[in-house]
């Protein structure tokens, strides 16, 4: 089994990991996917509500994990529901993490091909990305956390600068009226907000590595708030500039916002490359976390060393990433992952928590 005793992370690092996981490829399409459902400019309210719901699910997860200190979901799920169902659930989760990492890498490759490296073969982009990711995760969660601590502030600053600069084409009328058609549109949008908040499920694993697992809830709250604020700013600025009718027509609305203005006289004139390059780092972080979570799941499930499993997962993720044949399939893949996430990580923690509470399994035994 691969659990280094010194491989612990601080509470701040936990926050950073959660935030980095959430901030992924979703932000590039969020304004469109959300507006398509909401059909008004009220998507930012959906984001708040969606964020709160996710937070609740996240807190359930943390509470559950706190009953089994030092153990990840893969280890304690069997204690709750028995080894058969437990292994099945673990396998599902592993597949889910593999799917997410493949999806992130594919979206990254698609955007890069469209705007940055036209003509570079997809597999080259994907491969180089994967090998670097592998290099990072082989040294464990602590190195990942430290890298993310560097990435996250840069991301926030760059995103804020980009959004601030776009204010010249922002029109307040585009995001008015607030709740003009009542609360219904907001509820319609909830489903698509869940996808951008995918990432809270990492708390199934992280508490096992935390120095102070008791602070898990706090980490969860802060870790969710950072992306929530980023998403809201992005949504408001994009819809404010592109308008509701314009945003639904754009494949990558956040990038189109960046492409819609030029700033002369500043160090950079065009900001989409700037944002994209930074965002690739963010997608990289999402990719590495899910890659790590999947390999750890496999390692703990099969009780083998984690390193060979990491190498073994590379071709699998690669193949899954290249499975979708066109953009529609890529987006469908994303939707599918989103739905799986709702069932797997929205309902599961509540059910598991109920089982532990009712049958008093695990917790007491573990404590004793």
């Amino acid at each position, binding site marked *: 089994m691969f659990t280094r005793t010194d491989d612990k992370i601080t509470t701040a690092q936990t926050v950073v990991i959660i935030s980095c996981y959430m901030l992924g490829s979703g932000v590039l399409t969020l304004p469109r996917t959300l507006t398509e459902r909401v059909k008004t400019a009220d998507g930012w309210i959906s984001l708040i509500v969606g964020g709160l719901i996710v937070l609740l699910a996240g807190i359930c997860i943390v509470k559950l994990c706190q009953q089994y200190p030092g153990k990840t979901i893969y280890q304690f799920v069997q204690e709750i529901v028995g080894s058969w169902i437990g292994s099945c659930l673990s396998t599902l989760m592993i597949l889910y993490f593999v799917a997410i990492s493949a999806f992130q890498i594919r979206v990254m490759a698609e955007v890069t091909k*469209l*705007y940055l490296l*036209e*003509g570079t073969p997809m597999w080259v982009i994907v491969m180089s990305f994967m090998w670097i990711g592998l290099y990072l995760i082989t040294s464990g969660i602590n190195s990942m956390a430290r890298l993310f601590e560097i990435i996250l502030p840069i991301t926030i600053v760059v995103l804020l600068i980009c959004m601030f600069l776009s204010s010249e*084409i922002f029109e307040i*009328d585009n995001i*008015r*009226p607030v709740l*003009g*058609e009542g609360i219904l549109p907001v509820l319609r949008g909830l489903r698509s907000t869940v996808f951008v908040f995918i990432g809270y499920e990492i708390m199934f694993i992280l508490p096992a590595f935390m120095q102070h697992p008791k602070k898990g809830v706090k980490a969860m709250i802060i870790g969710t708030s950072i992306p929530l604020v980023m998403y809201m700013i992005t949504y408001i600025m994009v819809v404010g*500039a*592109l*308008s*509701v*009718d*314009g*945003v*639904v*027509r*754009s494949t990558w609305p956040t990038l*189109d*916002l960046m*492409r*819609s*203005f*030029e700033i002369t006289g500043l160090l950079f004139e*065009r900001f989409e490359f700037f944002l994209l390059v930074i965002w690739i780092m963010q997608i990289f972080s999402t990719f590495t976390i899910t890659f790590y979570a999947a390999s750890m799941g496999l390692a703990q499930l099969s009780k083998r060393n984690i390193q060979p499993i990491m190498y073994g997962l590379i071709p699998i993720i690669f193949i899954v990433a290249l499975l979708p044949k066109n953009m529609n399939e890529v987006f469908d893949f994303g939707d599918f992952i989103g739905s799986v996430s709702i069932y797997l990580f929205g309902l599961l923690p509540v059910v598991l928590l109920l089982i532990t509470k009712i049958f008093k399994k695990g917790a007491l035994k573990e404590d004793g």
Partner: protein
Amino acid sequence: MDSMKRYFVFALSILLVLCLTGCWGNKEIEDLSVNVGLALDVGEESELEQELAKEGDSYPKKNLITATLQTVPVLASKNEQQSSTSKSSAMYLNTEETGDSVFQLYRQYSLRRYRPIIGHHLKVIVISSELSRKMDLEKLLKFILRDNDIRPSCLVLISKGKASEALVSSQTGDIPSFHLRSMVENQFRNNKILAPMILTKLDGIMNSGSSFVLQNLVSAKGEVEFAGAGVIKGETNKWIGTLNEHEVEGLTWIKGEIEGGLIKTYDKSGEVLAYEIKSAKTKIKTKVHGNDISFHVSIESDGRLIENWDTSQVPTDDKFLKEAEGYFEEELKEMLHKTIHKMQDVYHVDVAGFGNKLRIQHPKVWKTVKKDWDETFSQSDITYDVKLTITDYGSSSK
């Protein structure tokens, strides 16, 4: 064994050299045709194209569109053929292609010029009113909106005459596309200039189905001027007429897009009076009574008395200032009246954003009238009051 290992490392490091080639796919910017402007006209083959066609340049197409691609830079080389529209001293090169698919026209370019065309710096698209009267704007712009190189920050303009003539300049060293792009920035000097309509905004407006205006261009003798606006009907995305400069002034007042500019009028003895706008604020209130929708436009503005030809009147006299304010308000009301009349009674379109105000202030009502908005708007009552205040009279008091 050790030497084997060293050989292996050595061989590997030679492999690494392969990575040092850098950007082997690079293209020097001097060797590219940077597309800076595009003019779309009704399909009509130029003489050159007709001759080329006679020599055998033909492919299946309908001659619906003539695209004029403006590219920079022009090399001094004399080998390069130049189309009839550009002079040899010009800094730019205009290439005309006739056909249907805009994308194909772009690619046809490569059959005539050796330097490949790139779209990253496309600044301005000019569409002739003749073409947009016949064809849906969306069809014309679909390729432009989809292309990954062309930025949606590109400006869209309408031209009264041939669009290709708007991309010609008689001034040496002037690149018409850049010229047009920069002229839009003059909004703070003249309120006859509409807020720039970039592709991003246009895409949204076209999808919303509401009518809109695009800045109109007129050209003569190699000079291009902003003159009024072309009105595009939302249902069809086709051109239906123009607003003259005076009506565009009224429109910018209603839309509240004033960043600067003036009001000029005449006093009772026919002498010139001019008002420099320092600030302007427009509020539109919508009122809904059953099926009746009405609007009230209130405009407030501060400004400076900048010119009066009747020198017997002095601005230090409060009475004169009040009187002058009256003249200006009268003129502004006249302007508003004409603009609203043109929109409601002549073209039956709402291009001043009244619908948008209704959407914000009465979202539920808007949903029911949205479909036929232009017609509903033409029937609605619009009232207005204006309040202009002359706050100062510059550096000359007598």
